């Protein structure tokens, strides 16, 4: 079948067009996209072409939609589903422990056509049904929320005070998850973009603390060249630096400082079983997450907005929707 889709060419030109979708074969389903979220990694791909395994590419791995066709009948047509973004190889040593540790992990959109389209075809094992009543525009946050939940689960004990470096969607979802697990936890935010800082403050974060303040949890959701070094500086002795931003900048660290201050540096990518939980969490308190979706564009409006998103970021998550047929 043909479907309308955003197409990223190897020349990094993003256009609206149509693409052929194979299938669905047995074990697959065709999903009519309701919303697809824009991730920071999408912006990285748009500007570099990194990680793409096929051209032209259709990105978008934060997807919610409605099952349109499922030849095997595993999921009923008409079911609203969140799509699992992960495509682990399933047989490496990492996969034997957990999917998030796959040594050859690939992702929806980068390896196969993703959700910036009217339809996509995915394995039925990638479908997570949404609870009755959960708005699709809230459910679109399930994938990045699962990422935030997985990251927070890396903590070995409840923090007493937390500092978030960066308040893009990942930082905002980390804030939401920390607040959900530990409602009394003081959370502070360091974020240069006024709209994002305003969102953080509106959602109850403390203003940027004094430079000498230290925290037993510092989340690096910024990923600027020295953010990890800064995060280590802001961590209290015995504290944890949790890295969720994808930064490729080398950073000098002093091992003795890690040792003498008993610091833990924890990285986290993707998720394991959290996607199912994230859907339930969103359904239980959707209004908590509603402000995190700050902008919605139609597929046909998307090329223009995605091109400007890196220079003029939205306060929160930008979501894309195919226009009405």
């Amino acid at each position: 079948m043909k479907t309308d889709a955003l197409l990223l060419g190897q020349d990094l030109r993003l256009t609206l067009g149509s693409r052929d979708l194979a299938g669905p074969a047995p074990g697959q389903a065709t999903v009519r996209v309701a919303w697809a979220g824009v991730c920071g990694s999408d912006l990285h791909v748009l500007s570099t072409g990194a990680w793409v395994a096929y051209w032209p590419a259709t990105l978008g791995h934060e997807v919610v939609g409605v099952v349109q066709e499922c030849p095997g009948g595993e999921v009923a047509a008409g079911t609203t589903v969140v799509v699992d973004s992960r495509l682990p190889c399933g047989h490496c040593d990492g996969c034997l422990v957990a999917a998030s540790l796959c040594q050859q992990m690939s992702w929806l959109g980068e390896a196969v056509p993703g959700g910036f389209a009217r339809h996509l075809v995915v394995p039925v094992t990638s479908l997570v049904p949404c609870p009755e009543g959960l708005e699709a525009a809230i459910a679109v946050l399930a994938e990045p929320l699962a990422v935030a939940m997985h990251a927070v689960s890396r903590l070995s004990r409840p923090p007493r005070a937390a500092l978030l470096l960066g308040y893009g969607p990942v930082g905002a979802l980390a804030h939401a998850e920390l607040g959900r697990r530990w409602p009394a936890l003081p959370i502070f935010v360091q974020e240069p973009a006024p709209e994002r800082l305003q969102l953080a403050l509106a959602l109850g974060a403390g203003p940027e603390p004094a430079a000498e303040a230290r925290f037993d949890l510092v989340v690096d959701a910024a990923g600027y060249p020295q953010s990890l070094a800064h995060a280590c500086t802001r961590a209290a002795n015995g504290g944890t630096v949790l890295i969720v931003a994808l930064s490729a900048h080398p950073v000098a660290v002093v091992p003795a400082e890690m040792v003498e201050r008993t610091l833990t540096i924890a990285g986290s990518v993707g998720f394991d079983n959290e996607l199912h939980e994230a859907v339930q969490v969103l359904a239980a308190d959707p209004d908590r997450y509603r402000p995190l979706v700050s902008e919605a564009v139609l597929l046909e409006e998307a090329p223009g907005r995605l091109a400007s998103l890196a220079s003029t970021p939205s306060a929160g998550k930008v979501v894309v929707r195919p226009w009405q047929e």
Partner: protein
Amino acid sequence: MAGVTEQAAQRLAHVPAYSPGRPSPGPMAGKLSSNEAPLGPSPAVRTALAAASGTVNRYPDQGRALAALATYLDMPTEQVILTNGSDELCYLVATVFLGPGRAAVVGQPCYQIDATASVLSGATVRAVPLRAGGHDLEAMAKACIGASVAWLPSPHNPTGVACHPLELEHFVAQVPEDCLVVLDEAYRAFADAELRPDIGRLLQRHPNVLVQRTLSKDWALAGLRTGYGLASRPLVQLLSRARPPFSVNSLALAAIEAGVASEQWRAMSVARVRQERARLEDALTMLEIEHFPSQANFVTARLDLDGFGPALAAGGIVVRSGADLGLPGWARISIGWAPQMAVLRSTLYSRLGAGATTDPGRTET
């Protein structure tokens, strides 16, 4: 003598029934028919409301909330009156200033409660047609001669058009001193900064001005029915005397107390509304759909809902028919959450066959 039903019917013969905005056919976020706040109240207000539920066995004491609000507004407490929604103030004004043999001035079309309260009091209503969706202030000033009240929403409902503060000042100066000007600022927060009048100065210069505000819009407390008025000390004192006791409930008072500290939430929410309003107005302009330039949290456009209504409903969205608001052939679209506004634009584009805002050139694979 006529029976009670006949008596009531006779008395209310010219009072139109109020039709609230219809509920959404889908999730509540699709209700774009009542100018409500899409993101709701701040987390702090929600927490305060939960805590206050344990005190509803007591009569409300408005002292702390009134003081907190006055401090927030930088006004003396004695110049602030809390009301059960801003609509209660309409009825208070009508009770105190209107009645048989008196006249009230409104724009045409007007905010319906202004007319309803006026007619209920027994007063006559002088309707001055709007010009391009805004008040015809020259004509209104003339109509105010011999009238007791001028109702002046700015930004206006149902058009969203705001008076310029200089024109407003000029208007108030022209109105006779024995005519009360009720400046309804329900939508003030959504207006451009230069279109928000200096209320302190206005009240100082003109003791016949009463400013009316609601906490239903940017404060997101529509369900709690809370509003307030700002006026001279003697006027507030007199209006308070006419107000029913305890008309503002204890949950609303708790929400006010917590709400004054939720400025960041309101600023964020208002910024979102203004962003979506601009995006909708751009789309309407591109589609050559006539609309009033709005300074409120809605946009009123010439749209035939017989055609668009079912298409919007299919997307889970309902808007307000202009026929309910004195603008047949128009629709008042409340600014909602970004996803609903995208669905609405999508419906507009599809119905009008206009594609969308860009023409990137289609590519085939």
